[in-house]
């Protein structure tokens, strides 16, 4: 009977483990975080298999049927995102033990793992829920815990970065809440399926249009869509390595999922794009994000910050896919959600290895690392190739689908821009490669390779980058099903 409760169990177990963490010492706390992440991974895998075989699952919390109770609804889109979040969380938590021990003050470790589990709970909850207000609650859980996680960074600038994110994140969350409130006012329901059914009857009102605007802007803040991205580079640059990897690979992805959910399921594609003409705003912003953030990334001297700007650019690819609003475009977005998580996860974990050995990720510190940390730098290069979009890696699959989608709409210049941006990626990845492989190491002190417990999760993600670049049956096929579901009407 436990299978029937999987939708809620996978969210609740990490939630219960989180306070228990605080009571433990460091190592048991880590074990609990591992347990919570591994459990959610197991649940997500079972859920995706179930959804693919039997169609969407509905779950009423506490037995209260919707619209009175809170409903969870798992369909292909969110089952896929759940799997992504839990895979990354598990890889990162295995990695976390050594990395956290070196970057975070002793005595705070149990707090760290507690916040980590809460963040995971929040992300899983946002994804699983079928209730607009419940989504806001989980959004706040994940946001608050991620502010705490970022602030734990060893650099004192982590505090200001966290504060910056707190302000921006809170504004975003408030906008989302206002949007949800306005929709509730007009429709009298918070359940997404009900909202989707009732919005068409009231859609031609200023209130609904305002709700749409508030929600879109609020979610875009969480996504870090240009020009609302200013919190992201600092937050990523100064957070502890594991936190950067987790947030870069999952938090923005979940926010993209939320945008997909509201635009296509709740409001419906025809309202979002035909009535409100969202693409008029979204396309230029996405293109600007792709071009500008890639350019800025070239001039960064902190490699973590460089990858953070690259993330802003990659988010542009995802929103571009959304704004194309055809099946191929949505497929590209969903595939890129997954693929980008794999590449950025691998890259940030590789940077974590460098941080662990060198204590800095400034670009001059990479001199000679190709010889001293061969496995770490090889992982970085592989992740970089995937980021560029070289064939046989996941990056190529994403770009291929996105370009096809652009061509389907006849947008030739956009397709060319996507390719040109890949060239910018070549430049910023190459800067690191050149330092690592062609500059002699400074000084006489030789720095060794990172320990195995850091390398294994990194290489697991690198392997995934290659595997899913060759075998697209999980990513592209499932994403295609999900895209058709999203465009085919309500969940």
């Amino acid at each position, binding site marked *: 009977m436990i299978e029937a409760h999987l939708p809620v169990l996978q969210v609740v177990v990490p939630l219960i483990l989180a306070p228990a963490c605080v009571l433990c010492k460091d190592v048991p706390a880590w074990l609990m975080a591992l347990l919570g992440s591994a459990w959610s991974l197991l649940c997500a895998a079972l859920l995706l298999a179930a959804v693919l075989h039997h169609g969407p699952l509905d779950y009423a919390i506490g037995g209260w049927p919707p619209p009175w109770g809170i409903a969870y609804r798992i369909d292909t889109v969110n089952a896929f995102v759940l799997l992504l979040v839990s895979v990354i969380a598990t890889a990162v938590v295995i990695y976390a033990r050594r990395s956290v021990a070196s970057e975070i003050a002793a005595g705070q470790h149990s707090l760290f793992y507690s916040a980590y589990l809460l963040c995971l709970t929040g992300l899983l909850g946002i994804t699983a829920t079928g209730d607009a207000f419940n989504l806001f609650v989980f959004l706040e859980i994940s946001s608050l815990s991620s502010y705490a996680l970022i602030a734990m960074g060893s650099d004192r600038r982590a505090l200001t970065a966290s504060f910056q994110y707190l302000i921006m994140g809170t504004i975003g969350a408030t906008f989302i809440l206002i949007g949800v409130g306005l929709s509730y006012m007009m429709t009298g329901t918070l359940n997404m399926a009900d909202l989707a059914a009732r919005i068409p009857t009231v859609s031609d009102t200023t209130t609904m249009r305002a709700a749409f605007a508030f929600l879109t802007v609020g979610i875009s803040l969480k996504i870090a869509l240009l020009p609302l991205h200013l919190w992201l580079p600092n937050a990523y640059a100064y957070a502890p390595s594991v936190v950067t990897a987790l947030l870069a690979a999952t938090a923005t992805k979940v926010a993209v999922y939320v945008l997909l959910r509201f635009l296509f399921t709740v409001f419906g594609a025809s309202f979002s794009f035909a009535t409100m003409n969202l693409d008029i705003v979204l396309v230029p912003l996405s293109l600007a994000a792709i071009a500008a953030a890639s350019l800025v990334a070239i001039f960064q001297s902190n490699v973590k910050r460089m990858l953070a700007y690259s993330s802003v650019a990659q988010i542009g690819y995802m929103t571009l896919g959304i704004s194309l609003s055809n099946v191929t475009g949505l497929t590209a977005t969903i595939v890129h959600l997954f693929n980008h998580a794999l590449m950025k996860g691998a890259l940030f974990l590789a940077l974590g290895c460098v941080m662990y050995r060198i204590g800095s990720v400034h670009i001059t510190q990479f001199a000679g690392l190709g010889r001293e940390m061969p496995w770490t730098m090889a992982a970085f290069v592989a992740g970089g190739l995937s980021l560029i979009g070289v*064939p046989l890696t996941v990056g190529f699959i994403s770009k291929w*689908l996105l370009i*096809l989608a652009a061509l389907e709409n006849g947008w030739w210049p956009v397709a060319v821009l996507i*390719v040109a941006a*890949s060239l910018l990626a*070549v430049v910023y990845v190459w800067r690191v490669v050149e330092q690592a492989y062609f500059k002699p190491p400074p000084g006489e002190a030789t720095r060794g390779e990172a320990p195995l417990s850091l390398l294994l999760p990194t290489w697991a993600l690198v392997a995934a980058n290659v595997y899913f670049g060759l075998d697209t049956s999980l990513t592209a096929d499932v994403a295609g099903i999900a895209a058709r579901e999203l465009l085919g009407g309500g969940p």
Partner: protein
Amino acid sequence: MSTPLLAGLGILIPLLGALGVALTGRRPDLREAVSLAAATAMAFTVAALFPEVLAGGRPQLQLLELLPGLSLTLIVEPLGLLFAMIASALWILTTVYSIGYMRGNNEAHQTRFYVCFAVALAATCGIAFAGNLLTLFVFYEALTLTTYPLVTHKGDADARAGGRLYLGILLGTSIGILLVAIIATWAVAGSIEFRDGGILAGRADPFVASLLFALYMFGIGKAALMPFHRWLPAAMVAPTPVSALLHAVAVVKAGVFAVLKITIYVFGIDFLDATGASDFIMWVAAFTLLAASVVALRKDNLKARLAYSTVSQLAYVVLGATLATAMGVMGGSLQIAMHAVGKITLFFCAGAIYTAARKTEISTMDGLGRVMPFTFTAFLIASLSIIGLPPLGGAWSKWYLMVGAADAGETLMIGVLMLSSLLNVAYLLPLPARGFFRPPPEAAGESMPPGAETSAIRTARIREAPLACVGPLCITALGCLLMFFYGDAVFTLMAPVIEASTFTARLTP
């Protein structure tokens, strides 16, 4: 063994060879034996495909499928087989030569050198057998990346600067232009397979076809069409065996091979002829052909001169493709074979002169021919082949290119080809002339600069390079001669490829 698997083996054997070389790195003799064994095994594997392809077979092997319609597939067709046979046969000779050169010059990192060399050959074989544009692209990029460590082998500032230019231009054009062209082809034709007669006919209007053709020709940076030719001279910082096999045969021929393959199997000769899509590039190729020859004239460094000569000779192949006639394509294919054998000989000679006499500038090579007769004779033979004089192989490619130009009604191009042959004479023959007819520096006259005495003594002590260097270059020089008498083998192999063309009449005399 079934033939499709042989195609896969052609790629697998050099890879296994690379692994073997890496494992035996501590024992140089064993390591070189592994290299030689891999080279020989690859040459025989590729040659074993010859009978079936000659009989009209097209062995096909799908490696994996990424997305529906997007797969890595190998198909062996005549043009690819020709390219693979040349590359693998010359790999054997280059390996022998490398052993002499690398040991003679005490080069460092020899294991890395042989590993990268073997992997580069695997990539070359992949390009030769590519069954669609994606496969071609993947192996094309792999070839760029694996040859990069070879170009920067010396590791000094010059090598790094050269390497950066090499990687920058080749990756930049392939990702920025070639990939766009491939994606655009998919969007226009709904397929990126290589098919007889092309895939674009009837699907693209003349303007789109011209645009696509230009994208392909400039996107294939390895074909060194101006203005994207600068990487080729930059790559001359590499050790000479690398320049010889990779920058006279594998890498640059991969470029022009891709040009021919795309011309024949993506556009189709008839379609190109009908739309005139290649006219613009024909002029670019003609310009490159002449301009590079003029630049070559002005280079005193022997390898730099040969590099620009290569740029010029590659443009012949592109010109052959753009003429959009059966004979033009035939001439281009023959040029791939003939120029490969000729140019590798010239580079071998340049390396032998460096190994024996430590000389790189042509103006310092007076009288060397008297002490290194084999090397300089080989140089002379190969030069005459490049120029296109019978009875040497190069005569055939020039002949068919001219016939192709006449068929296409481009009389001006015949003039360009003739002018270029004269320029070839002007920049290639001075070296053998200096070597044989000018006296060595000690007899140069009264105005002997200080220090010339020691250089005169050094000249007197110069002997031929080691046998491992001189042997291969004599064999390839002999090859230039043989290619003239066995040119019809290449012709018969290639005939079915262009048989579909409207110019079939010319094939059956």
